[in-house]
């Protein structure tokens, strides 16, 4: 096993451990970024000029950290998991309440604003996101 490969495997193992032990999304993001930066730095020194392999591995580690971060957020916020938990008698999922809370999240995240007429409209960031979504939904056939 080369030094580059050892750094990569160590980074994946550390990311998995961080996913298990670091529960908050923001703290996991910080921890994941630190792990990827440290291991990518070490791997670069050990790459012996194999920049292609180093770039591929670093891209993979970044994607792993991003994927695990999305997974952590989904585990906490997923409405389908809330409904499954309700069916299992774990808690009282409030579907309509979940939807209302997302609207407030969008407002506090600067994606929508509430006008004087009480209507919600997209901000410029929201419009850019909506344009991107229109393309992605059409390509993935999710525009129903």
């Amino acid at each position, binding site marked *: *096993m*080369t030094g*580059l*490969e050892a750094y*990569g*495997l160590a980074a*994946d193992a550390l990311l998995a451990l961080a996913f*298990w032990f670091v529960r908050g999304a923001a703290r996991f993001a910080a921890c994941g970024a630190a792990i990827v930066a440290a291991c990518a730095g070490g791997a670069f020194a050990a790459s012996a000029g194999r920049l*292609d*392999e180093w*770039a*591929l*591995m670093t*891209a*993979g*580690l970044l*994607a*792993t950290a*991003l*994927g*695990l*971060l*999305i*997974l952590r957020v*989904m*585990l906490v916020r997923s*409405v*389908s*998991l809330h*409904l*499954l*938990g309700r*069916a*299992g008698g*774990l808690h009282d999922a409030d*579907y*309509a309440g979940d*939807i209302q809370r*997302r*609207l407030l*999240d*969008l407002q506090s995240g600067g*994606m*929508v604003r509430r006008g004087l007429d*009480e*209507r*919600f*409209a*997209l901000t410029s960031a*929201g*419009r850019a*996101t*909506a*344009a991107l*979504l*229109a393309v992605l939904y059409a390509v*993935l*056939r*999710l*525009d129903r």
Partner: protein
Amino acid sequence: MNETAVAAAALLAAAGLSELVLRGMKLQTGLVRIVAAWALPYAAAAGWSVRHDASVIVLTIFWIGAFLAWFGIRSHLESSIALRMIYRLRERPMREGELIDAYLSTQSESMRLAELRRAGLIAAGAGAMCVTPKGKLVLRLTSLLR
């Protein structure tokens, strides 16, 4: 051709194959097909790596990350309430009630429950929904990882 180009081509093939096997099905329902759609391009890229003395370990590290990120983003695009609301609002500004009604017309609670049923996570019991053994396993895993 270098290994980055091979990995990128395999990634595109996996993403394309995934859409073909899903055919409008949700990720949680088509998970086995998805795993197969990602295993085939990986096997082809790994075969190329072995023949050209490239690192299979590096390819595998890349593949794990690519799958996790693709799964997270695809699943988020498919199910996110917030993204659906942004998509709806691109048509025109709406009051809260209108927006929620528009959302519920395509993503109602009963539709979500039907999707859970199709995925084999819940089943109709005596007067109420009950969680299947597969659903109980998912609940156990999510409570451990949450």
